[in-house]
């Protein structure tokens, strides 16, 4: 998924002898047409259901656009209204905060795990499977499960904390912003750390063995091998894992919609949640489109910043 690939097409073999060039040119032409025809279905789908909707989002954002009835051009009104939309900016703040905490938590768990499960063996393959298992469970099912684990009377966390003597009386995690927030962080780590772990493990394994061997002979400690050799050599994987994790958290919706409904008192509304409720609950589609555009711009900027931060000093690797 690295967006910067310098050699977009494989170099073609040397041209055929001149004798048959006429026939060759004809077949080359036919080949190009075949190639275009092959690309056509994908192009048509992506243009119709991705590019056109994307342009429509821009167009809609300049309108008052109800679900029924005619849309009305309002120019920049939606954007002006957004500036004063406290709830949107609160949601945006919350989403950024959530993304930072979730990403740190996911990497904090996934990176050590990747180092441990990098080695081969029966036991490590069991750990890999166990930790990857929640990745395949959908956010919908996982959220319903978590909502129940958070239940104050019969769930898991509150009774367990009481049994262990950590708290004296039942704690209703749903009642406070912190309770909801940290419970969802734990869930997201549980659900996605396995994926990040596998990505990072791939990066670690791609570090050439002879380099590590040479370092070991020169007396580099385990920590030095990791910090000075493995880490710099896996920058691309690291960038990919980071971007996927941040982008995923910036678009968080399912878990907050299902577990907390944005509550308590709208304190866990995310950006996508607010866009969703403006667009499909209040049916202010034009306003929702304007919010979407802002979110898209923010996402692109964040991705670019991450790519820039993790760029290789030598240029290509």
């Amino acid at each position: 998924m690295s967006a910067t690939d310098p050699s977009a097409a494989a170099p073609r073999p040397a041209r055929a002898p001149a004798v048959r060039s006429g026939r060759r040119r004809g077949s080359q032409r036919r080949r190009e047409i075949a190639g275009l025809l092959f690309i056509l279905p994908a192009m048509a789908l992506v243009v119709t259901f991705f590019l056109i909707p994307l342009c429509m989002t821009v167009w809609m954002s300049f309108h008052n656009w109800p679900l029924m009835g005619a849309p009305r051009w309002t120019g920049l009104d939606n954007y002006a209204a957004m500036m004063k939309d406290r709830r949107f900016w609160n949601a945006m703040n919350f989403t950024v905060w959530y993304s930072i905490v979730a990403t740190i938590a996911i990497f904090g768990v996934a990176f050590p795990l990747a180092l441990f499960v990098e080695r081969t063996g029966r036991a490590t393959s069991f750990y890999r499977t166990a930790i990857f298992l929640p990745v395949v469970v959908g956010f919908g099912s996982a959220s319903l499960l978590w909502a129940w684990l958070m239940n104050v009377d019969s769930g898991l966390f509150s009774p367990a904390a009481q049994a262990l003597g950590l708290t004296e009386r039942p704690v209703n995690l749903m009642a406070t912003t912190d309770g909801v927030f940290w419970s969802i962080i734990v869930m997201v780590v549980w659900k996605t750390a396995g994926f990040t772990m596998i990505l990072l493990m791939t990066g670690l394994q791609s570090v050439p063995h002879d380099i590590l061997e040479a370092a070991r002979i020169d007396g580099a400690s385990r920590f030095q091998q990791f910090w000075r050799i493995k880490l710099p050599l896996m920058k691309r994987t690291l960038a990919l894992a980071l971007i996927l994790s941040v982008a995923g958290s910036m678009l968080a919706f399912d878990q907050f919609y299902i577990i907390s409904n944005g509550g308590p008192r709208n304190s866990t509304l995310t950006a996508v949640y607010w866009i969703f409720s403006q667009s499909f609950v209040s049916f202010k589609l034009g306003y929702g489109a304007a919010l979407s555009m802002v979110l898209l711009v923010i996402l692109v900027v964040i991705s670019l910043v991450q790519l820039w931060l993790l760029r290789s000093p030598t240029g290509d690797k």
Partner: protein
Amino acid sequence: MDNIVASFAERRTDFVIKLLLVGIAVFWLMPFVVIFLTAIRSQGDMIRNGIFSWPEELRWDNFVAAWDTGRFNIYFRNSLFLILVKVPLGLLIASLAAYPLAKMKFRGSDTVFILFLVGLAVPIQVTLQPLLIMMSSLGIANTLWALIPPYLAFGLPFQIFVMRGFFRILPNELIEAARMDGASETSIFFRIMLPLSLPPLATLAIIDTLATWNEFLIALVLISANSSRTVPIGLMQFQGQYQSQFTLLMAGVLISIIPVLLIFLFLQRYFVAGLAGSVKG
């Protein structure tokens, strides 16, 4: 002497690491254990004894009750239909596009590829409003047909990217030789390229099946009729009705995740290795 101390310290670290790993694995698997223990007992039993006890009486009929009252047959049928249409179709279209992008150089091919790369960067969450408008004006909002085009369009960029990467490492000589023998591009694609790319296709098919089964937001926006609900949306609906019936609810959740768990456990060899390979490329 130093050596012995060092190796002792190292062995102790290894032991601590192993212990930690066991702890983490237990924590990771615990929700599955809890969900299972809850789904197979009665509500009263669970409230009396807590979730970590063995059920007084096994209630396998919870699954039947959840399946029937939750109308999971409708949701399963819908999700399976989506997967059976979307996954093969998407992979075919993606491979078709990836072949010329990998093995032919012609005017505009770079532009096309960049368009697909942009598709990778833009999330579907920012085009929900136009999609709803489009599907309603096409008259297919609220049907499963409304989900197939956006699922296809937003899956294609990643699949094309992976397949192009794979096709590029296949030797050009294969194609040149077939062309010498007079094979058409179509037969080169279907008789040489596709059969050789079964490993990445298998990986992509698994990823796509899981993603389609689990997709939530688009289905939530485009589908409101009960008869067109997919499994995650149906499960939400079920939860709304049985908020406090945790045993039934967990039986429902388990029903919704058993298919993906089975797919993963049986096919993880293709899945994890391929996942790693496809992001490495």
